[in-house]
């Protein structure tokens, strides 16, 4: 199933129109298989996947567990190379970018490792400036300003002087996002960012991403299990199932009741809300 090439503005609320001729991210027939050395898991493949994302777009990657969502994100982040196919960012193949250039274009927000030594929030956010420094270079005033801007973009100025290990889940999530913004990427990748947030936190995060995409022209790719939040906030959906890319399109194009029931293996209803976006409701009984 090839990516729908038409612009994804059909149902999205009024948003500035961007040049449709230049997709920021282009994923062309990308496949991947795990190496046989990993004995604990069988060779798992991501079948030919293609889609595009433009500036100011949010693309949600959906699918049940083990559908290949994380694999796709790892491919987009450049952590693994595709077996075949091609990933382009602003017309340049991801494979041609060195580590630092890649880190200047792509930022990944994921669950953080445990910190070994305590770190202040501002020190953590400044790490996002690493790809722009050389060797021992000490951070410039510009780096500090950009880190400060990143913190205020996520509404976390007040946290700057706090210790990382004293933050709540939601605060930490915002700070991690701020570090990613300090990288000044064009592509922002998020791996299940809503996992440890409460309902209010989830909505707040998605609103923030929407605003970042709209105002700062980021392209956002978010892997999530939240069908309704994805429908509400994203421009395009990539639906994966068992390593296959089943459908790519706007939420209304992808949210087909039969299809969703089948791949999530749960009885559900899909209706269209007054704002034109689909809504998924679980049914307790048939």
């Amino acid at each position, binding site marked *: 199933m090839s990516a729908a090439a038409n612009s994804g503005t059909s149902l999205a609320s009024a948003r500035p129109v961007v040049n449709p001729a230049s997709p920021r991210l282009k994923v062309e027939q990308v496949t991947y298989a795990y190496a046989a050395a990993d004995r604990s898991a069988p060779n798992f493949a991501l079948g030919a996947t293609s889609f595009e994302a433009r500036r100011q777009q949010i693309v949600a990657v959906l699918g049940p567990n083990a559908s290949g969502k994380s694999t796709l994100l790892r491919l987009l*982040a450049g*952590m693994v190379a595709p077996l075949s196919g091609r990933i382009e960012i602003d017309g340049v193949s991801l494979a041609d970018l060195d*580590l*630092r*250039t*890649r*880190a*200047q274009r*792509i*930022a*990944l927000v*994921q669950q*953080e*490792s*445990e*910190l*070994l*030594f*305590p*770190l202040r929030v*501002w*020190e*953590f956010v*400044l*790490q*996002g400036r*690493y*790809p722009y*420094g050389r*060797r*021992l*270079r*000490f*951070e410039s005033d510009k*780096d*500090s*300003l*950009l*880190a*400060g*801007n990143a*913190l*205020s973009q996520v509404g976390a*100025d007040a946290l*700057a*002087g706090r210790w990382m290990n004293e933050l709540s889940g939601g605060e930490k999530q915002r700070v991690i996002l701020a570090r990613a913004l300090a*990288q*000044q990427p*064009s592509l922002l990748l998020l791996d299940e960012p809503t996992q440890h947030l409460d309902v209010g936190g989830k909505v707040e995060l998605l609103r923030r991403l929407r605003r970042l995409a709209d105002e*700062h*022209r980021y392209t956002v790719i978010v892997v999530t299990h939240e069908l309704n939040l994805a429908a509400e906030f994203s421009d395009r959906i990539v639906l994966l199932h068992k390593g296959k890319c089943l459908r790519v399109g706007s939420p209304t194009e992808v949210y087909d009741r039969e299809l969703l029931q089948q791949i999530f293996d749960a009885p559900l209803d899909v209706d269209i809300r007054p704002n034109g976006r689909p809504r998924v409701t679980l049914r307790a009984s048939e």
Partner: protein
Amino acid sequence: MAIQVEHQVQGMRTLTARRVIGVCAMLLAVLFVVVVISLRMGAFPLSVRDIVATLFNGALGRRERIPSEFSLVVFGLRLPRIALGILVGAALSTAGAGFQALLRNPLADPYVLGVSSGAALGAILSLIFVPHLPGAIQIAAFVGAAATIAAVYFLGRRGGQLDSATLLLAGIVAASFLSAGIMFLMTTLPGRDLRGMAFWLMGDLSSPPPTQNVRGWFVLLFVVFAIAAGAIYLTASDLNLILTGEKEAQHLGVNIHRVKLVVYLSASILTGLAVSVSGAIGYVGLLIPHVMRMLFGNDYRLLIPTSALGGAIAIVAADTLARSVVAPTELPVGAMTALAGAPVFIYLLRRRVR
């Protein structure tokens, strides 16, 4: 992407080169004071004034102005031992800070991980098999250190992940196994010039330099130290990120494999260098970086030079104590560092477990 400058975040004080230089200058001054105190200690009485004048004239090359007995005591006897202490303390401490980042374990230290014992065993083997080959002992000590840390690294993994407790246990087991090997060699091969067992197991600064050209010898040792420590220092900003998390560091553009290789080789060289001239002195590589973290923070761009200077201060001070508390006999310097280091290790371990 055009970013409007909104405002500077309060309390954000980034590390500057100026601060690094300032802190290092302060520690250098402390080192100088410790060196002068150490030069005073001993059977032959010297006043601080005599010492400073002797050092001053010596540094300016005005040897004729120095009384010959001062020259003998300061440059012939006491200063070489102090220089050795500076070198060994700086090398072990820098290696410790390097291993802590490499293994992502705040309790890593060349002695605790058995790396020093590996270096000592390598050095002893070279003394047995190629006793007259110059430099062989240093190279053998490096190989011993590198092989041990590689073995401990692989033994310390569980399910593909480096496990802190397993790693420390692997290090302790390696250290006791290698120490047993050292004792075996020392007892079955008597009568050779292998130095004492206490030297290899505890560490000791009393051995004279192995050549007549003391100055050339020290220049060589310090050049090797500078290259290895400099290589680690150049990865300082990478190590800062690696300590936050390896996968995160990779996403921010750190070439993890290259950095790890550089730190692994350099820290092994530093350990081998220190052990080949002073035996296995314990806990410096653990203790000093921790004190420096408490004083100056966790930024490796500041931590590495302060650890090197702090290690030098600590070993010179410990050795001065070791030869003055029970004068006219003396303790091995390793006994002093273990007396101070072991309780701190337990404290850090407990604080971490909790």
